[in-house]
């Protein structure tokens, strides 16, 4: 995990401001608008199955964004986000299965529950730094499947058998679209709102405080930032994002079971974070694409060696894009703008 060293994080976080200087805001907004338009148009051309996969990509992207807020922007490590993802999924599933709550209400409910748990977990986590924090959160991830199987909770969690959830129906006035398309739109809207909120957050005063703590906690404290409050709040917000992603996944998969939320999920999210770009918000979606599709690609090349091929692809991607997809895009833009300023130099130095 050398990519997660402090200086790397500092570099990748410093770049967005440079990029903002290079890509004019109007152009950036135009690019985002084009992507959003494409995202809304896809269901008209793609099959139900592809819509299901893309919903999962968005969901993983949202979960990775949660982890990114904590790790990329605040410098706290977590291997425990599978636990928050699972908690969100189970909150939604239990509300729908046992209490017949409307699926849309389960999303904020999952967010609130995960925020609370994340905030509380953030309090003891204040005393732990770097690897020690990673280890503490690792404990959370290993404990989660067992807690879900715990005998006393079986009435709610369904124990090892898990819970079956009904996939949401499209509303009556939208009867021409099917369940997968509707779910995709619900996911897309929720994810867009939450990405926009995250972008606003990191550009705000609060966001600067969060990043200042990452870059130099002592200096941040000296400037009057309440570091413990901001760190625990960031933990809570991070858990909220990942928890809402978990709730959406419960709707998409229509089933939750303890085996869905093991430590492997945490590691996948971490891989997605690094691949997408530590400290980059749009990069999270690329991380989501990687988490969903690359294991499938590896599997299609060879069943027996899927794990090894996955590893090789991972190494190649890390080698080609050491700062993640976001860093790669930034480097390309930087080179293009250099070339535009001085075309005689050619595209390379």
């Amino acid at each position, binding site marked *: 995990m050398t990519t997660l060293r402090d200086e790397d994080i500092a570099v990748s976080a410093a770049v967005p401001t440079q990029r903002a200087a290079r890509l004019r805001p109007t152009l950036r907004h135009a690019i985002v608008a084009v992507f959003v338009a494409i995202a809304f148009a896809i269901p008209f051309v793609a099959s139900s199955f592809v819509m299901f996969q893309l919903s999962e990509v968005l969901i993983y992207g949202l979960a990775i964004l949660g982890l990114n807020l904590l790790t990329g922007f605040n410098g706290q490590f977590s291997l425990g986000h599978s636990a928050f993802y699972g908690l969100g999924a189970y909150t939604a599933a239990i509300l729908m299965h046992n209490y017949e709550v409307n699926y849309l209400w389960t999303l904020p409910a999952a967010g609130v529950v995960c925020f609370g748990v994340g905030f509380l977990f953030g309090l003891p986590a204040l005393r732990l730094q770097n690897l020690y924090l990673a280890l503490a959160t690792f404990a959370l991830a290993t404990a989660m499947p067992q807690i879900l199987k715990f005998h006393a909770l079986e009435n709610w969690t369904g124990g090892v058998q898990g819970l079956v959830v009904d996939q949401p129906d499209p509303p009556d006035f939208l009867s021409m679209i099917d369940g997968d398309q509707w779910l995709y739109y619900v996911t897309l809207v929720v994810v867009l709102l939450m990405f926009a909120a995250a972008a606003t957050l990191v550009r705000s005063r609060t966001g600067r405080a969060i990043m200042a703590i990452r870059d130099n906690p002592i200096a941040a404290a000296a400037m009057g930032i309440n570091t413990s409050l901001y760190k625990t709040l960031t933990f809570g917000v991070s858990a909220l994002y990942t928890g809402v992603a978990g709730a959406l996944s419960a709707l998409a998969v229509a089933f939750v079971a303890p085996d869905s939320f093991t430590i492997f999920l945490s590691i996948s999210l971490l891989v997605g974070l690094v691949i997408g770009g530590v400290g980059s918000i749009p990069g999270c979606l690329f991380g989501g694409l990687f988490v969903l599709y690359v294991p499938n690609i590896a599997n299609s090349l060879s069943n027996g060696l*899927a794990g090894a091929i996955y590893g090789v692809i991972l190494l190649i991607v890390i080698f080609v894009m050491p700062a993640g997809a976001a860093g790669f895009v930034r480097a390309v833009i930087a080179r293009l703008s250099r070339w535009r300023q001085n075309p005689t130099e050619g595209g390379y130095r």
Partner: protein
Amino acid sequence: MKQLTRRTILAAAPAALTLSVPFVSARAKDYGPGVTDKEIKLGNTGPYSGPASGYSPVPKSQVAYWKMINDQGGINGRMINFISYDDAYTPPKTVEMARKLVEDDKVFFIASPLGTPCNSAIWHYMNEKKVPQLFVATGATKWDDPKGHPWTIGWQPNYQSEGRIYAAYILKEKPGGKIGVLYQNDDFGKDYLKGVKDGLGDKASMVIVEASYETTDPTVDSQVVDMKAKGCDVFVNCGIPKFAAQAIRKAAEIQWTPLHVLSSIGNSVGATLKPAGLDNAKDLVSDFYLKDASDPKWKDDAGFKEWSAFMDKYIPDGDKLDQGFVAGASLAAMAAQVLKQCGDELTRENVMKQAANLHDITVPMLLPGIKADTSATDFAPLKQVQMAKFDGQRWNLFGDLIRGAIG
């Protein structure tokens, strides 16, 4: 169960249309999706990677078995295109892969997906889409549900009925015994425990210690010591090989010699008894429905020879002591039987009809006398097992075939 919602119908109608149109126009014969005059496309999911990759011989040997069938000319002249995907034993991935198989690859049906949580995840989906989920590779009890889930059919004797068989044996051998049960804290472990207690009926209080372990635990030594200390004289050991072996070894170390019943999950000589020490395993009792590939008594058995030749040719680097290869080959052989029975009426409806119409069917590695039997109200193909006692070298089958009380 509120399955037949408006969404179900809405989702099923366009799917049915898109799936059926090309076939109706292309040919007059009665074919379901994924079937042509030359080919039948089947799907499968299994744990090639992830925490349960120890089970990967099961899907691997299915792939190899269908290859053998193709080399022998296929089934009724059609080659089998068997598509097997990795789901890493994670339910969301199983859902994704099953949907890919059904909607993208357009397979005829899905054969023997592995794992209780994985099959649970696609249970409703498969039944909603009316795609057969044939011979699931798990021993949970719930798969025998022809009314609620007419598109899913089980396979192996379920864990609960095995537990009942152990209880019946204990009641006969040691009616006043004090029982300690060691089980894994998950679906199959709890199914065994329930089976044992149900089988004991009003004598369920004979179970005085219920000790569970997690797959992540380092040892089960303390559970075993505790059972001896509490005076247990019957030990039902429902551990997977690693933990079953530890328990056998520990019991010998502390010179505890209960009536020791070992569940079929952990009764592999290669994986459990050798590491535990063959001497320590003497007089253990267990149950079987497949032939133990490590047992030399089968060496002249026609079924074993067939399987062994298959292994030599198609999986030359596979460990023949791994029962996963036996299970996978048997699953594929049974699915092949269903396809043979279907003849040229290759519709999904007929697959389920034929799967529920197995009478006295046997495949090479089932124990002699064990037959698959199903009917429209009975979706549990295998129900019989035979008890066996370990003599320090190998398992010796004894007694009659026993029929589980459930399913």
